[in-house]
């Protein structure tokens, strides 16, 4: 490509790119700030706020707190359950002589790109079947939500766990064996501890995806068993009060705090690298 660009034009274009970058960064963060600022209104949602007050924060409904705690618990259980499934699975994928690994891995990765909305409906239909034919109540129960969330988020744990395990040298197994450790001891005392960064990174992603999911949960939640994002979504659909923004801000605060913690102990880059 022979595009000769003069010095002057080059400078102008580069300047334009820098300006565009600044605008893009502003574009990314503006909505986040706006939500927080607007929550300090007392009655109507106006930017900038006419009368600053903490009223909206002091009047947070109990249901918001309940769903928030429930979502935290659900996310934690989901991350843990995913890890329990994925650790042995990763070991099987990396360390065993399993046949058809490529196919299995592709299949297990499929929930990642699969539309959440379709999954939500499909699981709803399936849970109705369990309720009807097997008399096991799942719609509107914690267990049902946990199952659905785990199905949706386990690939986030599987991928970094497999990546981390693949990177571990075979020699650790040999060293442990030479020191008298059998397979189980080697796994528990050496391999799994060394897999920890991958597992934790995955559990973090799983927690976040579970904590923020609406599309799957909204089909499976009940009136007494909603999650925080579904509650927030429902409120946002029908209303527009400062209270709404206050609750949203607090939710974001928790997510961001978690991100900071993970960055401090593992590093975001590890979490985001997809092996």
């Amino acid at each position, binding site marked *: 490509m022979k595009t000769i660009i003069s010095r002057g034009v080059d400078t102008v274009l580069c300047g334009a790119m820098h300006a565009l970058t600044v605008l893009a960064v502003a574009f990314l963060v503006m909505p986040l700030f706006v939500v927080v600022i607007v929550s300090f209104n007392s009655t109507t949602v106006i930017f900038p706020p006419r009368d600053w007050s903490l009223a909206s924060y002091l009047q947070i409904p109990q249901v918001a707190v309940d769903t928030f705690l429930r979502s935290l618990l659900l996310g934690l259980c989901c991350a843990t359950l995913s890890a329990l499934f994925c650790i042995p699975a990763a070991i099987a994928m990396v360390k065993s002589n399993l046949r058809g690994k490529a196919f299995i891995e592709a299949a297990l990765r499929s929930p990642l790109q699969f539309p959440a909305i379709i999954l939500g409906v499909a699981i709803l239909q399936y849970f109705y079947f369990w309720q009807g034919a097997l008399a096991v109540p799942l719609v509107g129960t914690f267990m049902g939500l946990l199952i659905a969330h785990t199905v949706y988020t386990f690939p986030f744990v599987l991928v970094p766990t497999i990546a981390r395990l693949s990177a571990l040298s075979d020699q650790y197994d040999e*060293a442990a064996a030479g*020191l008298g450790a059998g397979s189980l001891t080697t796994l528990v005392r050496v391999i799994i501890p*060394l897999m920890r960064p991958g597992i934790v990174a995955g559990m973090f992603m799983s927690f976040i995806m579970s904590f923020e999911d609406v599309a799957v949960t909204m089909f499976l939640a009940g009136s007494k068993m909603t999650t925080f994002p579904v509650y927030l979504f429902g409120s946002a659909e029908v209303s527009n009060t400062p209270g709404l923004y206050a609750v949203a801000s607090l939710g974001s605060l928790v997510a961001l705090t978690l991100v900071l913690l993970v960055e401090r102990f593992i590093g975001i880059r590890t979490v985001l690298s997809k092996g």
Partner: protein
Amino acid sequence: MSRLEIDSLKIVYGGWTAIDDLNLTIEKGELVSLLGPSGSGKTSLLRAIGGYLKPAGGSMRIDGKDITSVPPQFRDIGMVFQNFVLFPHLSTVENVEFGLRTRGVAKAERRRRAIEALAMVQMDTYLDRYPFELSGGQQQRVALARAIVIRPTLLLLDEPMGALDTKLRERAQEEIRSLQQELQLTMILVTHDQREAMAMSDRIIVMRGGKIVDAGDPWRLYHAPKTAFTAEFLGATNLLPVEVLTRDGNRARVRMTKTGHEFEAEGSLADASAGYVSLRPEDITCTSRAEPGALPAKVMKRMFYGVNTHLRLETPGLGSLLAVQHRHGVFEEGADVFVVFQPQDARLLPADLPGEGR
């Protein structure tokens, strides 16, 4: 510490036979080096002894007990890997305790023995450090302590100096040898460094192409190697291709294949009539004055190494020679000199005789 016997060992990788019909006995309390170039099979042999490689044939016995099909965790053999393979998530003392923990040793006893082992390698002040905080030399010592604390019947070391700086190597060689002698360990070392093998070992097993080509104590191997390959591999030598003219007991009159120059050598070639004469550089004397039997030579290159000087000489009869001088006679490049050597230092050897060393 124990005696290891290996019979007719065969190791196969895919379709390729790495080792075939190998026999070896290692006595109690010996430090033996498996020495050879890359691909000689020495590492495969070591790994087979440790149980990390399953042989395709043959058997192995420790103190008479057959261990051929026993997995590594039950062989009671200590192993120090080339890059140490310390467990990164465990501290120094926890690493050393690992082997004791798997054997069900009680907590207090474990700690005591681990500290004792670490003291033997002078690492008892680093108990709570993690491997990433330790230098290469320190990691090697921890790896050693971890292997000896379990009181193994045999200790295997795979290129133990490979990951160390040159300066540290000689020190480490001394320390490992001292430890081995003090604890009377039976130790098998794999190395490609002949100086290391000669310095540390009671016996050296020279390997090439999956076979043992020579074996014996370092002194014998250096001064009376069985083949030209061994002569060249241990230390430096001048290998002169010759034909045998006449023989008289141990003496032989030989002729250079290329130049036709004749001289006296010692040794025999069994049935062959052509072979090599191995002449070590330190056995060549250079003088400025002609002596009876001296050959004229020209100094082509001179390399000063402090402790000695290497001279690359060009002679009409013997071709290019490497000589080593210590003190007397500092010769400049381009100088004309005379070289002398004794027939008993000119060893007549077959080219390469894949034999069985014991």
